[in-house]
């Protein structure tokens, strides 16, 4: 057997092992699922025997959400008291410790779930690229990405351990209840974690051995398996928070009814899953872009600067492509929250937590503003893009008007004197901006302008040579113009129709925005095929301000994730599990906005300090193999990515 054949065989076996690992939890869980996941408590069974003369008495109860009947298969949710027994404590707020542990685990978890998806995409781009030099660069980039995520993966596991210990020591009664309900899921989760680790290590360490031909495809398949495992892991973790917010599969007392799928598949599970996938990807893109920006700013040579400029652009573009649909996924989640419990929806959007949504809107605005700013700066590294730069001020006007409307609070902070001068809680002008109809218009204007900025960037150094280019340009201009008209018109029209119909207006608004995204990108690509270049993209010749915009983008992502996590969790108010298990700890109250903001900022700061350490480790490893790192494009300036 020749060496290549042996390699092939080994690779196929490794892929087979990964698939096996992926399926292992399912196989293991089959007996658990068959038995209902949770064994009937001994005490109940004994009592049944006594009453039924040896026959176990079957008690049935109704599912709180699905309204189906099920056999009671677990104890009721514990009724805790404010005592050391149920809530052991240090001389410190236990909830804050848990908040910290949870948030850090989540940051790293999101990062290590997102980066392999990027690797998969970039490695695939490298494999299908016809330009060999470019293919190598893509491959190197994907490898750089996974290298960073490897250290982060260890930290994720460590933080996960810390989180479990925090739960066990500070919230034992609650954690015991949750693990009773989710026993089979938690076992599968642990096995999935093993599968994820094994797959990740083979994928990373097998990179060089499997870099060509058939083996490369096997390697690429491994990344698919890796991402499937990662996604399943996340879905399982989401089922816990979904259950805490919108419990199902239990009766009113919180007793498990024997159907694990009901427990997993709660009202909010699917919207949470979608929201988290997109959020993780956007976040991952932001972090890698910040890494590239950091390396760009500290670069010593033009070649290094060019490489990290390119890396930053790719990461930003990937992150933003997932950021664009994120508000729509968030909208779906909120809609489901309202449908599940009006009370929860109002607490979130119109009540106690409403002001946090203004902060969230501000962060979303910052994300889009940073993205646009980066793209406008990036025009500076293309010769011939000057023609677009003089119109940037109009784009600034559009984005900022959308932003101002988007951040207008409905509940304004004002002194009593201002309240009296204004004549009430509502302002006749700003009161109209403070509700959803205007805000939907605002965010869609921002996103459409971001799409426009991308289109400008894509054609920055090109002049279309197709015969119908004049007609194409006019068509594109009209399309964007009418898109703006339609979005703004629908935002105004929303005030003249009933609220429930108004909610439906968001659909044509979103459709308009997405039409701009898909049709205009497609049309632009066709128009720019074989276009005349007015000059090359001079990678590395970009302002330092653009790199700070990337860092801003990443920081805003991190801050917003912390904020939204807090909002989502605190909407349960004084419930551990909504309407099932009450939080009777001394901390069962909602923090002030200021405290929450400080706590989120601390979490963000801590994450960035530790991730800097991870970056530093990545750079340390790179220094040992300088020759190999540069081997991607020996002796030549870095090539631009296809289609930039």
């Amino acid at each position, binding site marked *: 057997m020749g060496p290549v054949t042996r390699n092939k065989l080994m690779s196929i076996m490794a892929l087979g092992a990964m698939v096996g690992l992926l399926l292992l939890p399912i196989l293991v869980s089959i007996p658990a699922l068959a038995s209902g996941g949770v064994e009937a408590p001994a005490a109940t069974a004994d009592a049944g025997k006594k009453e039924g003369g040896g026959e176990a008495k079957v008690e049935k109860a109704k599912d709180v959400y699905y309204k189906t009947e099920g056999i009671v298969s677990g104890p009721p949710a514990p009724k805790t008291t404010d005592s050391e027994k149920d809530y052991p404590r240090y001389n410190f707020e236990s909830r804050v410790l848990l908040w910290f542990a949870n948030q850090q685990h989540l940051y790293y978890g999101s990062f290590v779930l997102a980066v392999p998806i990027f690797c998969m995409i970039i490695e695939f781009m490298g494999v299908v690229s016809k330009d060999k030099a470019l293919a190598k660069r893509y491959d190197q980039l994907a490898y750089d990405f996974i290298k960073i995520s490897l250290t982060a993966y260890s930290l994720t596991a460590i933080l996960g351990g810390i989180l479990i210990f925090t739960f066990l020591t500070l919230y034992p009664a609650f954690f015991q209840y949750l693990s009773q309900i989710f026993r089979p899921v938690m076992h599968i989760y642990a096995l999935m974690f093993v599968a994820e680790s094994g797959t990740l290590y083979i994928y990373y360490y097998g990179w060089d051995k499997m870099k060509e031909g058939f083996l490369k495809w096997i390697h690429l398949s491994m990344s698919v398996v890796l991402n499937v495992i990662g996604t399943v892991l996340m879905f399982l973790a989401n089922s816990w928070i979904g259950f805490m917010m919108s419990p199902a599969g239990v009766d009113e007392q919180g007793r498990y009814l024997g159907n694990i799928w009901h427990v997993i598949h709660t009202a909010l599970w699917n919207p949470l899953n979608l929201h988290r996938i997109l959020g993780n990807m956007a976040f991952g893109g932001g972090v890698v872009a910040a890494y590239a920006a950091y390396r760009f700013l500290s670069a010593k040579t033009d070649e290094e600067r060019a490489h990290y400029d390119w890396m930053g652009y790719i990461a930003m573009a990937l992150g933003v492509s997932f950021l664009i649909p994120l508000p729509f996924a968030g909208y779906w989640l909120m809609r489901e929250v309202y449908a599940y419990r009006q009370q929860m929806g109002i607490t979130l959007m119109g009540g106690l937590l409403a002001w946090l949504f203004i902060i969230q809107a501000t962060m979303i605005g910052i994300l889009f503003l940073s993205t646009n700013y980066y793209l406008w700066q990036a025009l*500076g590294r293309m010769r011939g893009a000057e023609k677009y730069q003089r119109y940037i001020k109009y784009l*600034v006007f559009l984005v*900022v008007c959308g932003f101002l409307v988007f951040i*207008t609070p409905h509940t*304004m902070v004002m002194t009593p004197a201002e309240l009296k001068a204004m*004549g009430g809680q*509502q302002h006749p002008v700003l009161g109209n901006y403070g509700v959803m109809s205007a805000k939907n218009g605002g965010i869609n204007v921002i996103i459409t302008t971001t799409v426009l900025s991308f289109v400008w960037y894509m054609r920055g150094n090109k002049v279309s040579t197709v015969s119908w280019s004049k007609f194409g340009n006019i068509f594109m201009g009209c399309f964007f113009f009418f898109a703006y008209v339609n979005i703004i018109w629908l935002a105004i029209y929303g005030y003249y129709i009933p609220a429930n119909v108004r909610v439906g207006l968001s659909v044509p608004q979103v459709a308009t925005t997405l039409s701009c995204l898909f049709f205009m990108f497609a049309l632009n690509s066709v128009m720019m095929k074989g276009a005349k270049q007015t000059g090359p993209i001079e990678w590395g010749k970009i302002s330092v*301000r653009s790199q700070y915009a990337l860092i801003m983008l990443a920081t805003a992502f991190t801050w917003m994730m912390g904020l939204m996590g807090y909002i989502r969790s605190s909407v349960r108010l004084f419930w551990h599990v909504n309407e099932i298990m009450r939080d009777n700890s001394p901390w069962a109250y909602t923090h002030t906005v200021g405290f929450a903001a400080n706590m989120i900022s601390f979490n963000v700061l801590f994450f960035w300090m530790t991730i800097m350490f991870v970056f530093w480790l990545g750079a340390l490893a790179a220094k040992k193999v300088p020759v190999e790192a540069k081997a991607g494009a020996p002796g030549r300036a870095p090539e631009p990515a296809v289609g930039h």
Partner: protein
Amino acid sequence: MKALMSVGALIGVIGLLVLIGMILGVVPSNTVKLVEGYMPMQMLSELAIFVAGFTGISYLMSSMGMPLPRFWQGVLFWVFIWMYLKYRVYPPIPFSVRAMYGTVTFVAVFMWVSANEEDWKKFKQPIINVLDANTGFHKALRTLYLILLPILIGGFSFLSMKPSTEEPIELRTVHPAPPASTKVHGKTYTLQTSQNPYRVNPEGKYDQEYSNKLIVEQGMGRLMAPNANPWDEKAEGYLKYVREGGEIFFQNCHFCHGDNLNGRGLHAFAFNPIPANFTDPGTIAQLQETFIFWRVAKGGIGLPNEGFPWASVMPPWEQHLTTDEIWKVILFEYWHTGYYPRTWD
């Protein structure tokens, strides 16, 4: 091009003069009225016209060989926005919101002046000139800043730390979160599914569409729909109930919520916060009828914890009105404001 820019410049100059005149009190502040109902779009349109006007002025000045330095363009634009928000919009906008808008505008100006290297250089130049202080004038300016800046910062710090006798700011919950159901006069109402029993058609059946047709036309000015006068003696069914609700409203509610339902009744300003303004699109127009029913029946006191922080002195009307009377009042409130209650399908 030049003609177009000249028109823009003319509009910009007139707009600026009017605004400055209004600030100084030379021009009456209602010269260009903010039209009720169209204020938000009017405000954005005015800003767009101003931006076009400034572009025109800048273009003309450049073509006449007297370009306004980029630095001053940025500074003046930011000052303009600040003045516009402070003096043009009435009733006055609270400082917190103006601060938010001011910050965003500051960022916008930065994005505009640093969009490309050339502009950024031009913008930075006056700042660098002062910092380098190569001329006597710049040196004097730098010294002045070195003295003024600490005094200004010290002054702001002093003012922000100084104890104030003003009432503390309170973030009030506009819509307290409702319970899943409420019990009024011994009957339980599920908030998500209950309906107003008086929103009925001539056959006496619940009919949202029918009442929507007879409601005052939604829109600013609140015109009455033809053949929809509840005070007509012959008015029957839904319209009759609207009248009855109106009578109850004017006997009990208008003292606080006002004749026009805008929250500015006779007693309104004795309360803090003042009563809800039903004509605002953010109040009853956003809510289900059952939500209003719950709020009217239970009042401000005794809201569940989920609704915290509530702040309302409205009495629990279930102690004074029958269930039917409450539903009729609600019918009247929607009819009068021209809004339709929210439904879930």
